[in-house]
């Protein structure tokens, strides 16, 4: 029962592959995009239904696969984000074999689902690689020169980071004589952390930093965002990032929660440990991501650097090392995923209409397609953290939780980092607004204001409308998601 959703996904993928082969054998042409999307989407929805029947239980520390409340929530989230990515259709003729493409999407989702629900180091690696290998292929699937470059970069960086991760995990096993995170925590509780554990931890953080596109492990992101098919980017940017965050939370909060190894990044009270490293990664990511995003002339690349910057905000909360901060980070990464996915979907539509994805291509979007412009407004202002959208609540929760966890007794705590994050977040409004300025203030240069705007298939419409609605609802009623996440985190990881 525990693997029911994953089984559904794999079965659907096999059905899809079979159907693709059959259609191609019969008609000589590959299966059409629309049919492949419908089959894949049905598979994801069925997997979501199957998830309702999966028994939820807290990890006993013995099993490879755990469906604790945290895993349960995030499997649902990953399926939701995966569905939105599936719904975002590729451009005409962009994908040569839709059957294989969507089967790979389902395999990637399977890997991501498995990754959310394990506390076992080796299984974690296997599941993560299942997802990663599918993603490498998905990125290069359109077979253009750009996509090939993106795929190669993604693969090379990903391969090295996977090596780091595996190497680090083996060190942890050597230290703890146990391949579970609970075992690592026990070993750390028994005595001071040895060099073996520290080395292992550093390598694991490097490996996960790549997944999350934290600077300085972010070099793949701009090329992947720009070169890969929008559908693949949506999966990499949203679902894969959410999963990376879940893994980071599990590893740090379950395995390395002990103060002896977490250290402290507090101002004037710096103690060596993972907390100050994450703080440095966060600061570098925020500064680099935001500054470089300002210089971009491609909205996709802009979103890539904004991804780096947003990872920085997430790491700010993680470096506070507390359950409410981690809960806020998990909430924010979902909100971020929705906003980025939606922004990519609108960008894809504009790109197909105007031929490129520069901010100028958005000029006059409000006249050409008002609702797409409004959706873009929702996504970008949510990313910039403007109320009443979910991105604002997410950032606010992130910052206030980080402060509350770190400033006990009136010490400055993480004020320096939260302050930097708040200022960087303010700066980010500049480049988001420069896109919105084109969409709302400028007119279409060729005077095509009255012309029909970018048309969209129903699936594409859903991929834009659903995240936009979710961001508004979560912005007005954040407790709907924030409270369950924090409760699940506390229940799953045994934190107070």
């Amino acid at each position: 029962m525990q693997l029911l959703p994953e089984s559904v996904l794999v079965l659907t993928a096999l059905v899809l592959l079979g159907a693709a082969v059959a259609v191609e054998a019969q008609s000589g042409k590959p299966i059409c995009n629309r049919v492949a999307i419908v089959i894949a989407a049905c598979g994801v929805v069925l997997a979501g239904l199957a998830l309702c029947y999966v028994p939820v239980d807290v990890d006993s520390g013995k099993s490879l696969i755990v469906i604790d409340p945290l895993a349960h929530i995030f499997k649902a989230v990953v399926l939701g984000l995966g569905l939105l990515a599936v719904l975002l259709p590729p451009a005409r003729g962009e994908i040569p074999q839709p059957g294989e493409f969507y089967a790979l999407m389902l395999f990637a989702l399977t890997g991501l689902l498995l990754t959310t629900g394990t506390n076992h180091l080796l299984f974690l690696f296997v599941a993560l690689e299942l997802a990663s290998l599918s993603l490498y292929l998905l990125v290069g699937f359109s077979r253009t020169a750009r996509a090939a470059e993106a795929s190669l970069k993604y693969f090379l960086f990903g391969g090295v980071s996977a090596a780091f991760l595996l190497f680090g995990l083996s060190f942890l096993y050597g230290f703890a004589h146990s391949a579970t995170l609970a075992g690592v925590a026990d070993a750390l509780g028994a005595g001071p952390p040895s060099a073996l554990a520290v080395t292992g931890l550093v390598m694991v953080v490097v490996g996960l930093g790549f997944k999350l596109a934290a600077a300085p492990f972010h070099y793949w992101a701009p090329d992947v965002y720009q070169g890969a098919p929008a559908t693949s980017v949506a999966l990499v940017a949203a679902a894969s990032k959410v999963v990376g965050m879940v893994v980071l939370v599990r590893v740090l909060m379950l395995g390395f929660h002990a103060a002896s190894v977490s250290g402290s990044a507090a101002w004037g009270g710096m103690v060596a440990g993972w907390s100050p490293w994450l703080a440095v990664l966060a600061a570098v990511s925020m500064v680099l991501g935001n500054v470089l995003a300002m210089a971009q002339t491609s909205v996709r690349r802009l979103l890539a650097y904004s991804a780096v910057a947003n990872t920085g905000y997430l790491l700010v909360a993680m470096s506070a090392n507390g359950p409410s901060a981690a809960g806020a980070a998990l909430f924010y990464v979902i909100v971020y995923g929705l906003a980025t996915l939606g922004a990519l979907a609108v960008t894809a539509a504009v790109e197909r209409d105007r031929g490129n994805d520069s901010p100028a291509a958005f000029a006059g979007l409000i006249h050409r397609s008002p609702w797409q412009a409004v959706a873009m407004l929702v996504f970008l202002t949510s990313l910039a953290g403007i109320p009443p959208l979910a991105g604002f609540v997410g950032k606010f929760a992130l910052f206030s939780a980080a402060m509350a966890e770190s400033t006990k007794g009136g010490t400055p705590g993480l004020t320096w980092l939260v302050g930097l994050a708040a200022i960087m977040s303010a700066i980010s409004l500049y480049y988001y607004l420069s896109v919105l300025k084109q969409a709302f203030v400028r007119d279409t240069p060729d005077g095509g204001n009255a012309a029909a705007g970018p048309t969209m298939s129903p699936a594409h419409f859903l991929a834009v409308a659903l995240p936009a609605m979710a961001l508004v609802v979560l912005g007005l009623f954040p407790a709907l998601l924030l409270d369950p996440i924090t409760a699940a985190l506390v229940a799953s990881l045994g934190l107070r």
Partner: protein
Amino acid sequence: MTPAWTILSAFAGALLVLLLPARMAIASRVIALLASLVGAVAAAVSCLARLNNPLDPVWSFDRPWIPGFGIRFHLAADGLALTLLLLTGIVAIAGVLFSWNVERRPRAFFAFFMTIIGGVYGVFLSRDAFLLFVCYEIVILPKYMLIAIWGSTNKEYGAMKLTMYSIGSSALILIGLVVAYGASGGTSFDIAHLAGAHYSPALQAWAFPILFVGFAVLAGMWPFHTWAPTGHQGFEQWKPVIAGLALIGIVYGALTALSQKDLKFVIGYSSVSHMGFVLLGIAAGTHWGLRGAALQMISHGIIAGLLFGIAGRVVYERTHTRDLTELREFDLWRTLPGAAIGFTLATAASMGLPGFSGFVAEISVAIGLWQFSPWLVPVVALGIVITGAFSLRALHKAFFPVRNATDTPPSLLPPLTWPEISAISLLIAVSLAIGLYPKPWVVLIDDGLRSPVFHSILYLP
């Protein structure tokens, strides 16, 4: 009618305007006017109710919102908040009337306009720091759009500059808020809770300036309400600095206004000078000072609305220039007498002539300052003199130019429309009403100053 109708009417108006079909776009101004009227009437009714029953508990609305962070949807309206609501309502009506003839994308214009009004109402009513911050930030984007789309000269640059200033200052406020949240135990964002918490002097010493600068950058839409919570000590420590900044603001603003060529820049710098009085009243920290600060905020809201409305809408709409020397050609006194009369009265109010609201406010601040330190009062007097100078100079150059008989006669300008006349009369009437009979306003303001939030800096029996 409870004060909640102010927020509801504004946001409902914005939504209704957006839902209008394209062919009825021009009806959006009617909807905006009705929504503003509902808001203003709700505020006025609530003000009267408060005046009649001053001992009733204040109206409030309190529901949990984000329990995980102790955030509540908490609105409450004491007398001070009510006067500011009424001010917002009046200015909203005048704003809609001044913008009556906006023809370019009217639906978007009035939707953004009403969103801003709703956000401002929300700022005045919020009793939860998170909610306050939401309302504070909600206006940033509509403000950008209003300026960037419907602005006049150099609009995209100006809009982006203002937006970056606003978001930058709100980042500082955010830092201050989360610091206060963390230091007060991380359980609640309620303003009274934050105000009642005990903060170590060390924390106050570094946290207070951050929050203060954040609010000061925006020249205090509603300044003291929220930074007051960070505590008496930080405030005491920084009082002389604030007073100094305020005095510099008054004199510097007035001096800069003296040398401007653009009529709108004159008004802009005079605002800097006016807001200096608000800051000064707060820095004085006495009852008179705070009362004067509140009065000045209200008075400035009315007068600045009037000045900008006449210079930026009524005159600019017809002349397409705001340059003081170019305006000379139009001989506005003869071609647009209504605007000239309105601007003259507004200038009188802005200079703080007795009978207008500005006088009541500035004299209160001066009394408060005298109680704090008599030596600073002459500097204020200097500021008032320069204010007179630049106001009269601008008025003279723009509306009453010296013209020779040989000059080409000015072209005729379209006369004032009814909406414009109503807006100008409304604002002048309110300024006169406050100036001639300030008692109800003072009673309501004092009611607000008695609230526990101000106990840390001021105790009233």
